[in-house]
């Protein structure tokens, strides 16, 4: 059967040049895709289907178990290829060109570099763990790990950007990962000292650094959001949380008998102790619930603010992202995950004791895997993918007609070791 019958009557295309040796007869193209007109302000559109992503994640989760985790490099690549390719802006989709092999080798390289110092550090801290040195070294160690983590995440961002292209033009990242890491350490200290009040300015400063060192071809990025803006949007949430924390403290000190609580802590089971324990547990549960609502809200606020602040060359991003849709994504994840966790927990407790140790262990491992992998897949699909899609669908870009003016610029080098460090520390992003 031939497809010819379905086609409009053949109208040979204008012969531009004699075709080279082409055995079959020349035919016109089918319905050519209509050129997408450039508007003032292109919009984002996510074209991927949830099922396809879910399949990638489920298969990936199983393969991670089968390979004892080594498949994660390939899974990350698969997932990014899907997300990038299905992210359309003004009708053109992003391209991710990173490879799993590069990731894997980068990770191996970093392990080879880090292993000797790690072993030394282990022996060293084992030997001098005492007293003041121990206190200092644990605080210092935490700060060190934080700096290394930030360093790694900046390097990982560089890998992601250099392996992202749009309309044939690559993104790049300049700047120093070390400078970024130190900057984020200082801001982290300040944020901790101010109980989080400095967070908006910290975040703004770090985003400014990242965007100022982001390049799309010949264009440079810029972050236009300000800390004050974020502060104004988030202060209500902060006050609410502070009020809740104070309320928690007051409630515990007012209504809970401290002696009974101490006895409960030591395993006593008299009525008073049980009451005190129940009171504290209930109050803590309330705090956890509050935190569970506050976190998505904070995420939504920050994400909206961040998207609105993005500038690249003459392009400016605007968004219609709504808080409630982000919170909804988290809520959905929770509603799906809770039954899974409950069923898995019940399953593990209903295994009879007399089946033998091997069966018990096997059942425990299987249940654990089902639960953890299930929750992980749910989180990837209901939170990560959904938020990505919401964000992409919500954006519009002003000044997009200028996109034809951008020119390639290959002066900035790519990343040689990939995301090795971030992979080794398991701090890689999406």
């Amino acid at each position: 059967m031939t497809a010819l019958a379905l086609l409009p009557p053949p109208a040979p295309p204008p012969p531009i040049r004699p075709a080279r040796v082409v055995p079959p007869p020349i035919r016109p193209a089918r319905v050519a895709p209509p050129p997408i007109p450039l508007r003032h302000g292109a919009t984002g559109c996510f074209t991927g289907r949830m099922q396809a992503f879910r399949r990638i994640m489920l298969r990936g989760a199983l393969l991670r178990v089968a390979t004892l985790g080594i498949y994660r490099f390939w899974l990350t690549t698969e997932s990014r290829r899907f997300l990038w390719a299905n992210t359309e802006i003004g009708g053109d989709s992003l391209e991710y060109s990173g490879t799993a092999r590069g990731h894997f080798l980068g990770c191996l390289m970093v392990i080879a570099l880090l292993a000797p110092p790690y072993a030394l550090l282990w022996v060293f801290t084992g030997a001098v763990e005492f007293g003041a040195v121990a206190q200092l070294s644990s605080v210092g160690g935490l700060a060190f790990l934080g700096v290394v983590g930030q360093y790694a995440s900046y390097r990982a961002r560089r890998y992601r950007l250099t392996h992202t292209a749009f309309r044939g033009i690559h993104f790049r990242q300049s700047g120093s990962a070390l400078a970024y890491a130190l900057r984020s350490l200082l801001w982290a200290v300040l944020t901790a000292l101010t109980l989080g009040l400095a967070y908006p300015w910290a975040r703004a400063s770090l985003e400014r650094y990242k965007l100022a060192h982001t390049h799309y071809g010949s264009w440079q990025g810029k972050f236009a959001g300000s800390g004050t803006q974020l502060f104004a949007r988030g202060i209500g949430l902060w006050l609410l949380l502070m009020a809740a924390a104070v309320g928690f403290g007051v409630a515990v000190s007012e209504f809970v008998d401290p002696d009974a609580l101490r006895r409960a802590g030591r395993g006593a089971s008299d009525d008073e102790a049980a009451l005190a324990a129940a009171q504290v547990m209930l109050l803590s549960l309330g705090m956890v619930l509050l935190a569970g609502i506050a976190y998505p809200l904070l995420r939504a606020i920050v994400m909206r603010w961040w998207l609105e602040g993005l500038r690249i060359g003459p392009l400016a991003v605007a968004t219609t992202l709504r808080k409630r849709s982000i919170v909804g994504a988290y809520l959905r994840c929770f509603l799906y995950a809770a039954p899974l966790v409950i069923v898995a927990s019940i399953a593990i407790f209903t295994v009879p004791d007399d089946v033998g140790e091997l069966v018990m262990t096997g059942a425990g491992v299987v249940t654990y895997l089902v639960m953890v992998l299930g929750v992980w897949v749910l989180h990837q699909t209901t939170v990560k993918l959904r938020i990505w899609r919401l964000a992409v669908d919500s954006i519009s870009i002003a000044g997009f007609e200028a996109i034809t003016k951008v020119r390639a610029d290959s002066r900035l080098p790519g990343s040689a070791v990939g995301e090795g460090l971030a992979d080794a520390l398991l701090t890689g992003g999406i």
Partner: protein
Amino acid sequence: MMDASLPAVTVTSGQAIFFDGVTGVRRTATAELGLTTMEISAPDGEALAAWRYGELATYSAPDGMLRVGPATGPARLEIRDRELAAAFMARAGRIPQPGAVEPRTRLKVVGWSLAAVASALLVAMFGLPAMIERMAPLVPLGVEQQFGASIDSRVRASLARDQHDECGQGPNGQASRAAFDKLVGRLETAAGLPFPVRAAVVRRTAINAISLPGGRIYVYAGYVNKAETPDELAAAIAHEMGHIAHRDGVRRPIQAVGLWLLFGPLIGDFGGGAVAWVAMHRMLLPSYSREREAAADTFGTELMIKVGGDPRADANFLLRGARTAGSTWKILLSDHPQDRERAAAIEAIARAAPNRGDSAASALLTATEWAALKQICQAPASTPPATPEVQHQPSRDVAGAETARAE
């Protein structure tokens, strides 16, 4: 070369979107498929590019689009025309797809991962013990002692909820303490250890004894209570001295670092990591610690023979099933059959010994001394506990005392 599923009449040209990789301009273009090259031209006839199939690759793209470009350049042609795409693939043949994860790749990853894990397991089972055997003697004694001191402070903190937890302190415990010290002293003189032993009885009900790096030995009160002869207690201390003589205290950290290097960074991942962790704790560690225990048993038995004690004391104790293991895991892993094996091994050494050890009186302590030693944890401490709340609770077990003797 042509795929059988392709339509009989294959297109050789069609419309696509072209990006030149130099500017952000998007162009509608016509692609013409030649035998060896694909020529791309603008609607007005301007030639945009001519790409040889051998130099091309396909890149990540959404469903329904074929994204083609030079393997080493940024220019791209995006083909949404399915027939053109099919015709291109037929012409180009096997074409690189950098970054694509195909079923074959997955199979390969699984295969290589299993091979890597198997090789790491082999190294952990045979290479690592051999390496530890050579490395442990190289660790300076001072380092081990410092290391031991750091662990000791943590163990003491978990053993003793208050400072009166060590038995035989104060004037009331003097006689008991003297008997204990005499027993330890006799063993130590004969043992020839790399550093001085500091042994103590601690107020814990478990039937256990532990040794730490750097020469620390803690005997639990439960062991003292359960021991029927001085030799049974001596055998436990001799066993722990075996650990000290073999420097098991430094072998353990070397083993931990080695295992981390082998398994940690690559598979430190939630799903796979959990499986690896279980496998390691069920297969590697028990077999390794069994070997160390056997070595300490041998040392302990020989030491008992040297000091003229009953070399079978430990075997008797084991066979009475008197010892309680440190945790559920340990009960699972070192069950009674293993105790029987150990007892048999001790018996084998004891059979060759000149001293029979079956005389009613012990060569190690007099009956009076033994009676005093049995009382070591009965004597109250000289000063009362500071607050009633931190009073000792004998029934509670403490995590952290996992370096148990039964390991």
